[in-house]
């Protein structure tokens, strides 16, 4: 297994682990963390692919992913706080009615 | 022009009455009277300045040439008499409905429209236009029954509508058939009268026409709508029904079958006379069994109009002229009886003969008027009704003495129901319902006087009526005599 393939496998593993976390955990906080892990997978794949082809776009895409993750965390934490205030805990399933 | 006026004046008079109601109290009544009065004047002008020939007045204009539809109006003595009755009864209906205040504007408009549509029936000789007016006539009459009637008025109005609309289909089908088979397409009755239909076709077409006419007439077994419609209708509605709508059936029977289907009529004449004879006796017997005064008179209408059917089917001079006289005489006598009973119902709230009685004591003028039309109803000589019946019976003796004998039996039956009617109303000690009944007032008295005068004058000077109808009788007989065996 060469370097790139190894790195891509690790990226896929990160993504799969994050996906499992999102699906399996009910606490929004944990789901947010899992989402970050999921994002880390593609980000790693971008960096690895950029390095492998000697192109700078891969690194640029990594920066965009980082910004996306930051925005997502900001929104997610806001939602988490709202949910805590209304439902009393951070259970995502408690919000399935999507009603105030 | 006089002919067009017969249609347009009452038609637009109706709309004018609708509008006039907003400008002041009782305005719509006077507008309706003015419209129908103007119609009468126009008719008078048309008669006075009329031509000498077959028609007093004639009007022809294309309307939809590609379909062969024309406005084809013609008036002879019979038509003129019918038109006079129509406008005259219209005016009388307004006068005796002075107490109607509920939706009065529409009420008077409906009266005007009934008159307009009936005038259209009397005048039209384009069969499609005739059929149009024939159907149109049902609408305002339906409104009169359904909106201003008594008791179970919706049911009566629906019965009236269903019977007449279904029967109108027969007429419409026959008219379409005739128009479609003509070449070039035309609905002109005079042209269609020349076409040579086979005997079977004539019989079928005649059945279509006769269905419409016999339901309107009405002859048993098509009469079920009449007693209900009469009893539930307001007084004006009863008058227009008896004096006008029934007469359109008689008029149609008199005018079109002999003209269009002489062979078919000759073939079916025996059946027609038999049906008429049955109707005379059946109507008479049923009239004897009624306790409701209006129903009683309605059944006498059935009997008397059956005599008209007998007369038309008789196909001889006496019978035909008798049929003409009978239908005019019946217009006077039956509408007067309905007027009187309606006025009585308005005063006492009942038409039940068992609850009435003793009117002679409390309202002598009322009772005297009843006695006059009582005499007319039982065909007392000196009234036009006797003239009509005697002429029809004479004609029947020429054709078939059995029918004459049956018609004579009806003279006896008529005494039974007529005495029942006057016995229940005028005789006896005054019942609670008729105590303190006010006598006839002005607006009731003069219509009664006019109707009574008409019945008596035409009965005592019959030449007035017979001479007037003669051209129509001759014209009706002309094609019949050719085909009679």
């Amino acid at each position, binding site marked *: 297994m060469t370097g790139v393939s190894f790195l891509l496998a690790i990226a896929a593993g990160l993504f799969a682990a994050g996906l499992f976390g999102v699906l399996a955990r009910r606490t929004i906080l944990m789901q947010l963390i899992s989402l970050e892990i999921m994002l880390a997978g593609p980000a790693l794949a971008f960096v690895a692919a950029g390095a492998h082809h000697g192109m700078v776009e891969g690194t640029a895409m990594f920066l965009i992913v980082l910004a996306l993750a930051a925005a997502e965390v900001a929104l997610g934490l806001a939602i988490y706080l709202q949910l805590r205030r209304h439902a009393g805990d951070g259970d995502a399933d408690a919000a399935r009615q999507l009603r105030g | 022009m006089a002919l067009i006026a017969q249609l347009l004046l009452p038609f637009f008079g109706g709309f004018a009455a609708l509008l006039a109601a907003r400008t002041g109290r009782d305005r719509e009544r006077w507008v309706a009277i003015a419209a129908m009065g103007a119609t009468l004047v126009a008719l008078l002008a048309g008669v006075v300045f009329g031509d000498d020939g077959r028609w007093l007045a004639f009007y022809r204009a294309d309307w939809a040439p590609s379909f062969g539809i024309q406005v084809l109006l013609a008036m002879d003595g019979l038509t003129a008499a019918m038109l006079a009755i129509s406008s005259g009864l219209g005016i009388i209906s307004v006068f005796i409905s002075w107490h109607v205040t509920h939706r009065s504007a529409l009420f008077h408009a409906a009266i005007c429209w009934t008159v307009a549509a009936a005038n259209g029936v009397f005048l039209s000789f384009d069969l499609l236009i005739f059929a149009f007016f024939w159907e149109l006539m049902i609408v305002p009459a339906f409104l009169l029954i359904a909106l201003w009637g008594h008791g*179970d008025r919706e049911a009566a109005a*629906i019965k009236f509508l269903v019977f007449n609309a279904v029967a109108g289909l027969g007429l419409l089908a026959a008219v379409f058939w005739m128009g479609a088979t003509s070449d070039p397409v035309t609905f002109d009755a005079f042209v269609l009268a020349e076409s040579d239909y086979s005997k079977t076709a004539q019989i079928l077409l005649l059945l279509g026409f006769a269905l419409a006419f016999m339901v309107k007439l009405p002859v048993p077994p098509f009469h079920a709508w009449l*007693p*209900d419609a009469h009893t539930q209708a307001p007084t004006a509605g009863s008058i227009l029904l008896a004096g006008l709508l029934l007469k359109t059936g008689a008029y149609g029977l008199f005018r079109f079958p002999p003209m269009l289907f002489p062979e078919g009529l000759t073939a079916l004449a025996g059946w027609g006379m038999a049906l008429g004879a049955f109707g005379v006796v059946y109507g008479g017997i049923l009239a004897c*069994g009624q306790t*409701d005064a209006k129903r009683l008179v309605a059944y006498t209408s059935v009997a008397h109009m059956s005599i008209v059917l007998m007369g038309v089917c008789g196909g001889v001079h006496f019978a035909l002229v008798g049929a003409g006289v009978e239908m005019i005489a019946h217009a006077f006598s039956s509408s007067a009886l309905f007027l009187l009973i309606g006025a009585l119902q308005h005063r006492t709230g009942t038409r039940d003969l068992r609850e009435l009685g003793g009117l002679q*004591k409390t309202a002598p003028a009322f009772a005297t008027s009843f*006695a006059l039309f009582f005499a007319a109803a039982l065909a007392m000589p*000196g009234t036009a009704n006797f003239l009509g019946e005697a002429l029809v019976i004479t004609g029947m003796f020429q054709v078939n003495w059995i029918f004459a004998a049956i018609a004579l039996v009806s003279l006896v039956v008529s005494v039974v129901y007529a005495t029942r009617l006057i*016995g229940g109303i005028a005789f006896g000690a005054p019942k609670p319902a008729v105590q303190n009944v006010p006598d006839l007032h002005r607006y009731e008295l003069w219509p009664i006087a006019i109707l009574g005068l008409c019945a008596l004058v035409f009965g005592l000077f019959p030449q007035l009526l017979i001479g007037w109808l003669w051209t129509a009788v001759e014209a009706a007989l002309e094609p019949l005599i050719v085909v009679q065996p």
Partner: protein
Amino acid sequence: MLAYLLLLVPTPPLAGFVLLALDPYRLDRRAVRAAAIVAGCAPLAVIAPMAIAHLTGLWGDQIAPIFTLYVGSYEVALAVGLDTLSAVTALTVAFVSACVMIYALDYMSGARNADLRRFFALMNLFQAGMLSMVLAADSITFFLGWELMGLCSFFLISYNMTSPRAFAAGQKAFVITRIADAALLAGLLLLFLEAGSVRLSELIPAGAAIDTARGPLIAALLLIGAMGKSAQFPFHTWLPTAMAGPTPVSALLHSATMVAAGAVLLARFAPVMAANDGVAAATAIAGVVTALFGAASAVAQTDVKRLLAYSSISQIGYMLIAVGVGAPAVAMAHFVVHALFKSLLFMASGVLSHAGAGGTSIAALRGTARRAPIAFASFAAGAASLAGLPLVTAGWWSKEAILASAFEASWLGLAVWAVGLTAAALTAVYAFRPVFTALRAPETETPRGRESWLAVGPLVVLAVLALAGGLGVKPLTELLGGHPPHPALWVELAGASAALLGIAGSAALTFVPALADRVARARRLRAGLQMDARYYALLVRPYRRLVRRLSGGRGEWVERVVGRGRGAQGLERELEGAVRHARQPEGASSDPVGQATVVLGLWIWRALLLPFSPDRMDMAWMWGARGIGRAAERARRLQTGRVRDYALALAFGLAALLLIGWGMTWR
């Protein structure tokens, strides 16, 4: 042109009728009486000079055309005319009716709650009708007068409005006479068709000349018409009950004039009757049967008015005998005499009843001879004339002439004569029963009452004529174109002895209690052989049953035929509404034929529409629509609202997309 004066004969009473009926000025009682009496007596003033001029030969036959009606090729020429027959009858009618009107002025004024206006209006109308009938020169005017009399008869019999009995009597009279009138109308119309004219002068010869089967038919129809109006057996039942009317009405209509009009009709059409032997014989037989029946029934009566009614029936039977044996002139002579003495008897009985214990029963007349002597004397004169007291009374002369004519006619006439003689004896028996009763001492003594000259005047005049009129019978017969019979002496003696025997019998019936009891118990005979009950059972009740069967109930059978409409949904519910409409509305009766059409319509409606109820196509569409609804219901469950479920779906979707993308790279 003088002939047009004839129109003035029926005009005054007609004008009187119009004035009184319309009553424009709210006339007071005096004005009503004045108008009535002027209108009632004017015809006499007009007709008397004309009739006398005609009868004395100064003035020939007159005809005054009124107008002519053209019906195609036929001409209906109406006219009034004066010939000997109409002169005699019109004079009689005008005279008797004037007497009755004068009498009625007094008589009716005394009655309680009298509606004088209506009474006199109708009496005047009756006069106009009767006069135009006797003066008619054509069959239409004749029938007009004939029917007008029937109408007035109905209203006058039921003059007492509050009495149901009076109304029933009037109705019965009207219906029975109308049956006969229908026959008469048929006869007249057939004659018209045969002759092509309505003028009696052409109609009657043409009628007599018919040699087909129509001849006897027409004659028979005329006979039926006459028998109905004249209350001849078996049409007689209406006359005794018609006595419910006031006495002047009975005196004028139901004895002297209208009832005898049948005899006038037959005398008028005598040539037609004579041309048909069979019908003539039937006329004579009907006459003699009625004469005997009427006389026998009259003997058993206990009410003086009913007695006189049966007497009228019987006397008109004599007139029919005369027409039947071919002596119409003699019949008319008897008509005149009968009019005089019968109106006299009725009017006198009215005065006597008022003077007596009240009521019109014969027993109530006891002692009235002393209380109202003039009325009693006139009554006795009338009764003598009716009984045919030999030589001194008019009745004897005219009745003898009839019997002698029958005697001379044929073998049938001989039988008729024999029966007629028996009837004559019975006539004397019943005629004198009221007279003898009135002579008996009253049970309670009351002073003599005042007799108003208005009431008694006409009585005296009539009484004189009823006695002395006998002198006129022979000339009258000759004037009318008949030949006074000259029977053998023994025939005349037989007639005279019959009358005398009858009077003796009458005395016996009145004064011998045992016999009087027998009369009182003769209930069957008194009821006129109970023909009334028989007619009721044979005609009236079946007719009523027919009417009830046809119009009874409200037509509930419709529901049985069509069905009530079972369910409460869709068409069935509409059907229920339609069936409700097919039934008659509140207060209405059944009408089988009319409803049959409605039922047929409903049947067709049901037959056409029920296969489409429920509508299969509609059901298919609805199934589809419901299927979509169910699918949506299921699809809804996917929407759990759980973020994780959606994320899983996203993941599966992504995986699927990747798989597809991967698959598409295959070549």
